[in-house]
C-alpha cells in the first residue's frame, strides 16, 4: 500500500503528422488506501494518465512517485502494481488458475503452496472457485471480469489500476460489479486508481473524483463536492444525469444588493446573499440549475419562475424526465412519476435559489454556488491544494 503522487506530469504524443498534448501538467496526491476515480470524456487523457502510472507509456515531463519513490523510469514489472484492463487481457492459453498465479510465479519467489493458497483466497473473494480450471474463452464476460480482478488481487500490490473495467458488461451486471469492487476495496484497502467515462460509476465508487478534460485537471474532490460545487461549467455539465441546465442571462442589480437574472423569456429574482461574492461589474453570466432541483408548480410567483412549453416526456418509472423548450434551447427537468404534463402544455417551473449556480459566460469558471460549502466545506481545501 502506498501513496501515489503525480507532479506536473505531462504526456506529449509526437507523431510525424501532429503533436498531441494528451496530459498537461497534472498534479495529483493520492493518499494511501484511497479509491480515486479518474473521469472525463474520451480523449481527455484519463487512460494515458493511468498508462503512465502503470509504465506502459513514457512520461514526457514531470514525476510520478509511488510510496515516495520516483517510478518514472521503472519498468511496469518493477512498480509493484496490478492492472485490470477493459478487455480483461487474460492469457487465452492458460487456465484461470494459471492466469491468476502467473504474475506471482514470475515476479515473486513465493513457493507453489503459498501461491495456490493466495489464488484460492482471491478466487473465493471473487466467487470464481469453480472456474479455476477453465480456460478464459469458456467464460462469460462477467466471469472474465472477475478473473481479471482476481488476477490483480492475488498480487497484493501497492497500487491497483483499473482501466474502464466494467465498460464491456451489460448495465445490470455493471451495477452489481460496481458494488462488488467497492466491497473488495474496503476489504483489501489498497490504493486504487480507477478510470471510467461513466460519471455514475465515479460518483458511486470514489473517495475522490478526478475530472479531466483535454488533458487538463478540472477538479478533484469528493463526489458530493464536485456535484454541489463544480469549479466550472465543464464539471457541472459532466457530473450529474441528466446533466445540468445552462441558460445565458443578464444580471440586473438593485441598489440593495439583490438582483434579477434576465433571460430571453423570463426573469428570476435573486437575493443579495447569492450575489454578494460576485464582482460588481459582472453582468453577463450563465446560470445553471440541475434537472432534479427544478419543480413544476403552477402557483409559483412570476418573479421566481420560468414559463415554458413541454417538448417530450420520458417515463423511466421512478421518475419522469421532462424536456422543455426554453427560447429554443433544451431545458431538462426531473420530476416524481406522478407529475406527467402532456406534450405541448405550458408549465411553470420554479427552483430554490440555493440550487442555483452562476458561471462566467466567457471563461466558464464558476462564480457562485447557491449553497456554498454547505456540507462539503471540509474537503474544499483539499481541492485547492491539489487542483491545478
Amino acid at each position, binding site marked *: 500500500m502506498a501513496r501515489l503522487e503525480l507532479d506536473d506530469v505531462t504526456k506529449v504524443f509526437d507523431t510525424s503528422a501532429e503533436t498531441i498534448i494528451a496530459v498537461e501538467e497534472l498534479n495529483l496526491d493520492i493518499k494511501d488506501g484511497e479509491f480515486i476515480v479518474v473521469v472525463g470524456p474520451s480523449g481527455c487523457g484519463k487512460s494515458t494518465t493511468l498508462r503512465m502510472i502503470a509504465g506502459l507509456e513514457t512520461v514526457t515531463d514531470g514525476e510520478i512517485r509511488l510510496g515516495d519513490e520516483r517510478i518514472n523510469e521503472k519498468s511496469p514489472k518493477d512498480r509493484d502494481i496490478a492492472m485490470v*484492463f477493459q478487455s480483461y487481457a487474460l492469457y487465452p492459453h492458460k487456465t484461470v488458475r494459471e492466469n491468476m498465479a502467473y504474475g506471482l510465479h514470475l515476479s515473486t519467489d513465493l513457493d507453489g503452496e503459498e501461491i495456490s493458497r493466495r489464488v484460492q483466497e482471491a478466487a473465493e473473494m471473487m466467487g470464481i472457485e469453480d472456474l479455476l480450471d477453465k480456460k478464459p474463452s469458456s467464460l462469460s464476460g462477467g466471469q472474465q471480469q472477475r478473473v481479471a480482478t482476481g488476477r490483480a488481487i492475488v498480487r497484493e500490490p501497492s497500487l491497483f489500476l483499473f482501466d474502464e473495467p466494467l465498460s464491456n458488461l451489460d448495465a445490470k451486471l455493471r451495477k452489481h460489479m460496481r458494488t462488488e469492487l467497492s466491497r473488495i476495496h474496503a476489504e483489501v484497502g489498497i490504493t486504487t486508481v480507477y478510470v471510467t467515462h461513466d460519471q455514475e460509476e465515479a460518483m458511486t465508487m470514489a473517495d475522490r473524483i478526478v475530472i479531466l478534460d483535454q488533458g487538463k485537471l478540472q477538479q478533484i474532490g469528493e463526489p458530493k463536492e464536485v456535484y454541489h460545487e463544480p469549479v466550472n461549467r465543464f464539471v457541472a455539465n459532466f457530473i450529474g444525469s441528466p446533466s445540468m441546465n445552462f441558460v445565458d442571462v443578464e444580471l440586473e442589480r438593485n441598489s440593495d444588493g439583490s438582483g434579477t437574472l434576465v433571460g430571453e423569456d423570463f426573469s428570476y429574482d435573486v437575493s443579495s446573499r447569492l450575489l454578494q461574492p460576485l464582482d460588481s461589474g459582472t453582468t453577463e453570466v450563465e446560470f445553471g440549475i440541475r434537472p432534479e432541483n427544478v419543480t413544476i408548480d403552477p402557483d409559483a410567483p412570476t418573479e421566481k419562475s420560468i414559463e415554458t412549453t413541454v417538448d417530450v416526456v420520458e417515463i423511466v418509472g421512478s421518475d419522469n424526465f421532462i424536456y422543455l423548450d426554453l427560447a429554443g434551447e433544451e431545458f431538462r427537468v426531473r420530476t416524481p412519476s406522478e407529475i406527467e404534463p402532456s406534450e405541448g402544455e405550458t408549465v411553470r417551473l420554479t427552483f430554490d435559489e440555493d440550487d442555483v449556480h452562476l458561471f462566467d459566460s466567457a471563461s466558464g469558471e464558476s462564480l457562485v454556488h447557491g449553497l456554498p460549502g454547505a456540507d462539503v466545506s471540509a474537503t474544499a481545501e483539499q481541492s485547492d491544494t491539489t487542483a491545478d
Partner: protein
Amino acid sequence: MLNDNKRSRALLYVGIVAFALFAVVPYYWVIRTSFLTNIAAISPDTGFIPALGKLTVESYTQIWDRFAFVTFFRNSVIVSVAATVISLFFAIPGAYAFARLDFPGRKALFYTAVFTIMFPWIVLTIPVYEVFYFLDLVNTIVGVIVALSIFVLPQNIWLLQGFFRQGIPENIEEAALIDGHNELTAFLRIVLPLSWPAVAAAALFAFLTAWNNFLWVFVLTTDEEVRTATVAIYYILGSDVLREWNVLMASLVLLVAPPVIFYGLSRRYVGEGLGGTPG
C-alpha cells in the same frame, strides 16, 4: 413430387457435381496414367477406367532406376524446409515489428516488402544471377536456400503481421509486462505461444511456395546434384527421349505428394491461423 425449393436444390447439386468432376478429372487422369505401362498409357483401348490387370507400379520403379530422383527429392526437402525455417526466423520478429512498433520508415519498408510479392520475379533473373555468381553461390544448395528464403520472406511477413496486429490484443502483452515480463520475454513467452496457428499457416505457405518454386532453382542451378524435383520434372518433360507419359505422371504424383502430406499435417492449425483468433 418435388416442390420448387427441393428442385432448385437438386439442380444445385447437379451443378456442383459437374463442376467438381471437371476439376477432379485431370487429377484422376494423372494418377491413372502413372499406374499404366508406357504403351497402355497412350493406347486408346485402355479406357477411362483401366482394367485392374493393366495397373502396374513399373513407372515408379523406373523413375528410381533412370533418374536421380532420390537426389532431387532430397534437395527439394532440404531447400524447402531450410527456406521455411530461415524465412520464419526473420519474418516473425520482422512482422511483429511492423505490427507493433512505430519506427521511422515503417510504412515505406512494409510496402516495399509487400510489393515484392506482386513483383514479376522473372524481370530480376539476370541481376539476381549476377549477384549470386558474384557471391559464388550459383549451382550450390546454399545458394538455392538463400534465394528461396528471400523469395518467401515477404509473404511470411505479410501473413504474420496481420495476425499480430489483429489476433493478439496489445493488452495481453501489457498484462504480461505488468506480470513481470520485459518486452522480449513477453514476446517469447506470451505472444509466440499464442501465435502458433499463424506461424503454422505461414510455414505451410512458405513450404509450398519453396517446394513449387521453379524459376530461381532453374536459373541458379545447372548440375543434377543440386537440382530440385520441380525442376527435374521439367528436364524429364523436355528430354528428347520418347515421351513416356506414365513416367512423367508418376513423377508428378511424387512431386505433389509431400506438399499434400505437409498440408494434411498442418491443416488443423491453418484455418485458425488465417482466422486471426489466437488459439
